[in-house]
């Protein structure tokens, strides 16, 4: 079983991103689960969401404490949340940032992948909503969900022009980290 923890701020679509991971993994014929770290939602406040992917039905319902992957949608969270908490040594953390890797203060032995998802999202979507772009990066860096399945899950959620743009954002991020 692989466990994923997403960090973001309220309004950045972290919960939606976790849900899309679950839908995409299921498209891959694997079992999945996604849920938010339930809170009183406020725009801008630190939020978390979780996803699990496995080849067997998933029964456990506790939160994720030792993730295989961490996705950080907003680099300013590094100052307020220990985003790498419990991250497995052989895991990966994918961070949306334009800062150089060596300037990030992270307490982990895991691989750190950085991507300027905000820039990609601004160029393609015209808005700093990075959740789908970060899913492209997660897909490219982890290969835990297939790109085609991810595209299917996105197309189910976002229709028409918005869907097309999100697919392009995903592809761009996927290629950048692969």
């Amino acid at each position, binding site marked *: 079983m692989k466990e994923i923890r997403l960090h973001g701020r309220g309004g950045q679509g972290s919960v939606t991103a*976790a849900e899309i991971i*679950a839908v995409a993994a*299921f498209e891959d014929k694997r079992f999945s689960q*996604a849920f938010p770290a*339930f809170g*009183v939602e406020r725009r801008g406040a630190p939020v978390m969401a979780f996803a699990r992917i496995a080849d067997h039905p998933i*029964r*456990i*319902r506790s939160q994720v404490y030792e993730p295989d992957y961490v996705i950080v949608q907003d680099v300013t969270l590094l100052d307020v949340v220990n985003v790498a908490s419990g991250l497995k040594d052989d895991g990966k953390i994918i961070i949306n940032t334009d800062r150089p890797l060596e300037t990030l203060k992270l307490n982990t032995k895991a691989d750190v992948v950085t991507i300027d998802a905000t820039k990609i999202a601004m160029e393609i979507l015209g808005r700093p909503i990075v959740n789908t772009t970060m899913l492209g990066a997660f897909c490219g860096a982890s290969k835990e969900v297939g790109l085609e399945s991810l595209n299917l899950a996105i197309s189910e959620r976002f229709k028409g022009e918005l869907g097309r743009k999100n697919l392009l954002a995903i592809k761009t991020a996927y290629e950048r980290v692969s």
Partner: protein
Amino acid sequence: MTANMKVVEGSYAVAHAVMCCKPDVISAYPITPQTHIVEHLSQMVANGELDSEFLTVDSEFSALSVLVGVSACGGRCYSSTTSQGLALMYEVLYNASGMRLPLVMNVANRAMGAPLNIWNDQQDSVGARDAGWLQIYVEDVQEAVDATLQAYKIAEDENVRTPAMVCMDGFILTHVYEPVELLDRELALEFLPEFRPANILDPARPMTFGAFADPSTYTEFRYQQFEAQQKALGKIESVAQEFHETFNRYYGGLIDSYRADDAEVVIVTMGSVIGTIKDAIDAMRAEGKKVGLVKVRCYRPFPVRALRQALKDASVIAVIEKDVSIGAEAGLVTDLKSSFYNSNLRMPIIGFAAGLGGRDITVKDIRSIVERAEAARKGIESEFEFLDLRSEIL
């Protein structure tokens, strides 16, 4: 994994199940974490997918009161609520059950205030255990879907005719996305016959519901409700079997068990924590520990005979529950102990209040409970504990 499975939100899956039951009237007042269920239903009605009357009201009290009237006129009804909303319905809960109106309601279990807390525990519905409703607690989204359909069939049975709550852990099950097989509408309606009560409010045949009962008749009303719940024990089992035959899914009728046959330590609990407990049991079994689980699916009526039978060989029992009866342990553990006293079962039973106000319950927590249960075999040190108590903030 079946071909018809889909990853959807728990609340959507339950709303879809309600749609398949074709209620005539839905009335509810939105309250976290129940909101998504009624939002989806309201959307289904607005889209024309569901031909029901959706009545928006000013409170939970009104929501359930409206349904009491509709049900007395012979309509199939649905509501959903949680926590303070359920508390506000309290008076109407007794009216619905006393008038023998088979309403079905999903409770998205949440803690009671004060202090204000929107997260999951089961204080709300366990606190309403004496109100005369049937109570079924589910462990995952699929069971929430299936139990909702089953609940109508049980509640509307002419020998039962008692309202039912299907209790699903708020957020943990209402907000999770996981693979679910949504109900097939046609199959569901075949499974659930039309609601045709013998006695309804009808101007052509006037009668009164919930009328004045003086001391010479009141006891008999309560006795009949008590008898109806006893009859529900058999109906819940047979409906679960019938559901199994039709839909090929089964969760137990009144109770279910997991690796409990040769278990020395048996955990008894209800709700969504069961999944985590099953994982913990597998891990402990791999280390040679004889641990098992008995799930209480039906809390009202309380399945005394089934529990005595399932637990007779346990050396020690640990009850885990998300409620407290302040001043007297908690609901499930006291009910279990009381149902054993007049039998020959004398193993130690210890109780744990866990997951209160949304505190996470982990595999590690389950391990620590099992350790304490093992120690209790040599003598009970503490009969009832609050799990994971943070002494540093007390």
